[in-house]
């Protein structure tokens, strides 16, 4: 099969496409394929030209840390749980997440996620479990990997300057349901950085590797407002 990768050598370099030949193995994940390509003594592209190793990020290799989020055949996904057998056609196209700054190849800088949370002081401060809190929903929301897939797929999320996206809604819910002091502040931030901008396409729920029911967080936040 053919592997097309959008590459970039350094933070300041120009991106370019490069293609590789790879003998498809159904049970390989995209992460496994990248490892295998990189392991070649001298990586060569499809035209036989020497190519630098492909940079990508990983840690857990089992869909639990969010490190390997990228765009595979146009769909945002985790490379370590995307199997080649599930990809159609004999070309796989891999790009870095586009809503973040590309550091190198498939490695992106997602610090805007934590910076935004910091900006609005998203923390519990004083713990006070609200009677409306729901254990199961809190458990689900707290599983968020901060991988950025929900932001990548969202039609409303641009660069995180105003609209902070689905992961923010889930964190807001986690705070609103348990903070004695931050509730009002977080409701306001939720309004201005999420509720106003969300058009409820709900593509975020489909793409979430943790299957977080974001809609339920949104519903609970809206109910709280009433």
């Amino acid at each position, binding site marked *: 099969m053919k592997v097309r990768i959008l590459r970039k050598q350094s933070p300041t370099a120009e991106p370019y496409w490069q293609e590789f030949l790879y003998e498809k193995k159904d*049970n390989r994940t995209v992460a496994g394929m990248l490892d295998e390509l990189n392991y070649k003594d001298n990586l060569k592209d499809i035209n036989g030209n020497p190519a630098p190793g492909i940079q990508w990020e990983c*840690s857990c290799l089992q869909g639990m840390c969010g490190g390997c989020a990228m765009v595979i055949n146009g769909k945002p996904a985790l490379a370590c749980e995307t199997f080649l057998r599930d990809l159609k056609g004999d070309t796989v196209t891999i790009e870095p997440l586009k809503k973040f700054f590309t550091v190198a190849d498939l490695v992106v800088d997602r610090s805007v996620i934590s910076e935004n949370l910091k900006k609005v002081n998203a923390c*519990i401060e004083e713990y006070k479990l609200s009677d409306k809190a729901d254990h199961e929903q*809190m458990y689900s929301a*707290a599983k968020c990997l901060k991988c950025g897939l929900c932001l990548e797929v969202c039609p409303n999320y641009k660069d995180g300057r105003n609209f902070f996206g689905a992961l923010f809604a889930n964190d807001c819910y986690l705070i609103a349901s348990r903070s004695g002091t931050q509730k009002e502040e977080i409701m306001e931030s939720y309004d201005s950085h999420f509720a106003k901008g969300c058009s409820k396409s709900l593509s975020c729920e489909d793409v979430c590797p943790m299957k977080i029911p974001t809609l339920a967080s949104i519903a609970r936040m809206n109910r709280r407002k009433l």
Partner: protein
Amino acid sequence: MKKVCIVGSGIAGLSCAIECAERGMEVILVSPFPSERAQSVLAAGGINAVLSSEGGDSIESHIEDTLKGGCYIAGKESVKGLCEDAPEIIKKLEKLGTVFSTGENGKIAQRAFGGQSYNRTCYCGSATGKQIVTALVMECRRYEGLGLIQRRLWTDFYKALIKDGKCYGSVFFNEARMDLEIIYADYLVMATGGQNALFGKTTGSTLCDGYAQGRLFLQGVELKNAEFIQYHPTTLETQQKMLLVSEAVRGEGGRLYYVEDGKRVYFMEDLYGEKGNLMPRDIVSRTMERTGKEIYLDITFLGKKEILKRIPEVYDLCLKYRGIDISRESIPVSPSVHFFMGGIAVRNNHETNIKNLYAIGECASIYHGANRLGGNSLLAAVHGGRVAAESISEDKSETDVKNFEKDLEEERRKLSTRWASESEFPVVYLEDLVAETLKEDLGIVRDEERLLNGLKDVDYYLSVVEKLKYDKSEMPYLGFSVTGILTLAKVALTCALFRKESRGAHYRSDYPETKEEWQAATIISYDDGKFNVRLDSENVYES
């Protein structure tokens, strides 16, 4: 204001950062990636604490179980501190927002892991580590907002700044600027996790490579108990890692077997009776290895409905990564490296033999002795961070500043010459070779001949490592970390060769007995090219 630099932002690093900030100290929290990527998020099973004496449990029992599990070579005082702090830790984690699973009475639910006399493992569904990380990240963010904690990402540990037995901060490799930089600090706290890279594929994260421990050793920091490496008996191999198949499968009645002459042999039950499958991790792993056969774990008899109710995550994992439907077929399992009891030697306050240099979490060796009990390492990660912060805050000694700019220039020069040229055989390949060596020669069952072979291999790799270049298209970290990793491999082999007995996770077929004269921790130090090993018979590290 005291300035503390913490390296690593898993549960240990986060805990220490928060505790330091609470005490009004200034913290710089360094890691290449955010906390969500740390190995801590993989911890599933739980965290131990005695929350009530109703069922007969007591802190004394937690202490005794921990000491016994560790085969009596962990310090009594430090273990006492750990277990006494545990109830407070759970309370605090809950207050910070950790979503613990609760029982019908609304109280935190508890279950038992192997080696425990009572149900004392608190858990958050099947994602305990992740839920704790989420809570700690939020609290950490609060102090970031207050300006007390500053996070530094894209930054890798390079070496500590040490002069005359005292630490002044650290040199880092800044991946954004592609350059070395110094962060001066009054105290340096290492929280870099375990040493998975020594063995290639393990159950853990690729970010835990052991480089920092190896590098610090070469700088004069003493290491401890490096021969004690815990194997988890039931893991499922994929191309890239060993997936942990939870002990819960055996807890639900799962049976281990191999096939001989077309028949299943339930070897654990044959040897140890009805409860054989649930024997401690080291015994199961060793017995599996001894059979020399492919081992399977059968849970099909439970039926799909019950499996999906009781162990859904195991069902999903096996189906997703290996296409195995565990309600219809057995799981092919093998033991894999899972946890490192050994690491940086620290005293009870988590300070190393170097003044103002601390180590916490899995990179430190203190509470687990020769074997760790499930649920005790998350506890140790949080507790260690608390103890270190307390000790630093109370330290009355003078802090001073020294200039290391000249050393920085020298390191810059060294790094750029290594990194600047092409190489047919980049240094990173040595990492794979050493993993092969250790798997072969520092496995579950060891003997002198294999350990000596392993040492010969690693010595050879060490003799060439400085002559090889780094691959220019890779991050320089992958190149310069190899020397530290190889050094740590030699440390582990040397300690395993030194300990002429079997104890806990260290099993020598040529010395199968446990001997009283070896009932002490192994300490290893570096002096001018020599690796010096001794037993800490006088318990220097227990004060």
